[in-house]
């Protein structure tokens, strides 16, 4: 049996998790204070994912804004973080941009959209 020690990243408490595994299967997660922690522990050892935040360039903003912040609308595989960042490197979105607008659909073929997180006029 294999035991992995993790720090939960679901919230600022940062619970110390102990995940017990056998033959690649999770047997138990302990140390968590909430169900989100248990789910994180399971996922982190089998299929780790992250929300990725970044920014892309904006054109034509009346306030002179040069960039608009963005995030993946959901988790993407940890191994795809850099692919996602590369995929939006050349994106330029025309103002106005609203929170939730898709700035790059299906970023890095993850099936998840990159969406704006700021209002730019």
């Amino acid at each position: 049996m294999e035991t992995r020690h993790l720090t939960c990243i679901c919230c600022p408490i940062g619970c110390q998790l102990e995940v017990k595994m056998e033959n690649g299967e999770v047997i138990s997660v302990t140390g968590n204070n909430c169900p989100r922690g248990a789910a994180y522990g399971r996922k982190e050892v089998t299929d780790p994912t992250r929300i990725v935040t970044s920014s892309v360039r904006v054109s034509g903003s009346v306030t002179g804004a040069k960039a608009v912040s963005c995030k993946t609308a959901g988790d993407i595989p940890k191994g795809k973080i850099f692919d996602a960042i590369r995929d939006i490197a050349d994106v330029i979105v025309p103002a106005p941009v609203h929170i939730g607008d898709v700035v790059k659909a299906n970023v890095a073929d993850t099936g998840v959209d990159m969406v704006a997180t700021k209002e730019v006029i």
Partner: protein
Amino acid sequence: MKEVDIVIIGGGPAGLAAAVSAYDAGVRSILILERDKELGGILNQCIHNGFGLHTFKEELTGPEYAQRFADQVRERSIAYKLNTMVLEISRDKVVTAMNREDGLFDIQAKAVVLAMGCRERSRGALNIPGFRPAGVYSAGTAQQLVNIEGYMPGREVVILGSGDIGLIMARRMTLEGAKVKAVAELMPYSGGLKRNIVQCLDDFGIPLLLSHTVVDIHGKERVTGVTIAEVDGNLKPIPGTEAFYSCDTLLLSCGLLPENELSRAMGVEMNRATNGPVVNESLETSVSGVFAAGNVLHVHDLVDYVSEEAGAAGRAAAEYVRSGGEHSGGHEIPVATEGGPRYTVPCTIGPQKVGETLTLRFRVGSVMKDRFVSVYLDDERVTRRKRQVMAPGEMEEVKLTRTMFDKHPDLQRITVKVEEA
């Protein structure tokens, strides 16, 4: 002179939440003065996620969190002025400010909420020897350059200090193609949140050097490298442990200082542990009718707590306006601490003025494990909570209720104790 019931100094998370709660408590004459070109304060450059779990029960990025509160301000048609610098506040609450449209102007306020936030400790305050080359930035300045202006400040980076902004910038610079060689932390523990160590350093294999500091900055025109040494138990560099790190950029994430020039100039009594004003249970400073909330009062770890605290300050300011200040000041008991808390906010409590609930916030001075946080009213323990781990980087809170105080009509002492389990 123009008259306003409540003037709020600063349009960041604290100022916005204070304005909304003061409005909802019935005050209509409110003015927010903000020096930046938009509302939201530092949240605008904090593009990472993790904000709002307490307030909105979902994880938002900084700009999204700011937008929620800015929307609430606009829905209520609360007045604000941008690009406006407050220069002075007099003890009788005349606010002197300036901007390009109005020039220099005075406003007579009935109540003032201080919500100016904080700023980063600079290289000058850290006394790092060496030349003064380009390439030394505070982590927040680098964050502004990358996230707002769209510039990369450097390619090979060392970060001194493991505050959350430094950790967040280690990840951000890495994602944008820089090589972050190390994060050096003077203390034997990180000043940042555990989750940020994991998702900003561990995820990218960036080493965290605890009990290490930068002892020399190399380069004359541009940074060419830094020397990092291990420190002993007295935080003094240990000779022989120096190591050279080649880099073109040094980011500093070495603590935040509440920005209280205005408060000091108007004679507000300050707390030496927080560098913020001394406040009572209503978050009122030593100057009657002047309230404080957010990072100008004490540096917070989570914006959710800033919003909550500022909401309380806004309501207290509204009550001050409504009653003409008749409950201001009065008999107040200083909050004593034992066993760990470096300070508490509020610092004093007027038992007769406590509302339904009262939140006491504090930080401990060192990492502590398996403790109880207890509050005593005279000799009675009124609350006790187990804490597995407490660290200086994370804020603690205890909630007190009106009922607890009602049982102690002749209350003399209030004590927050951290006790061994």
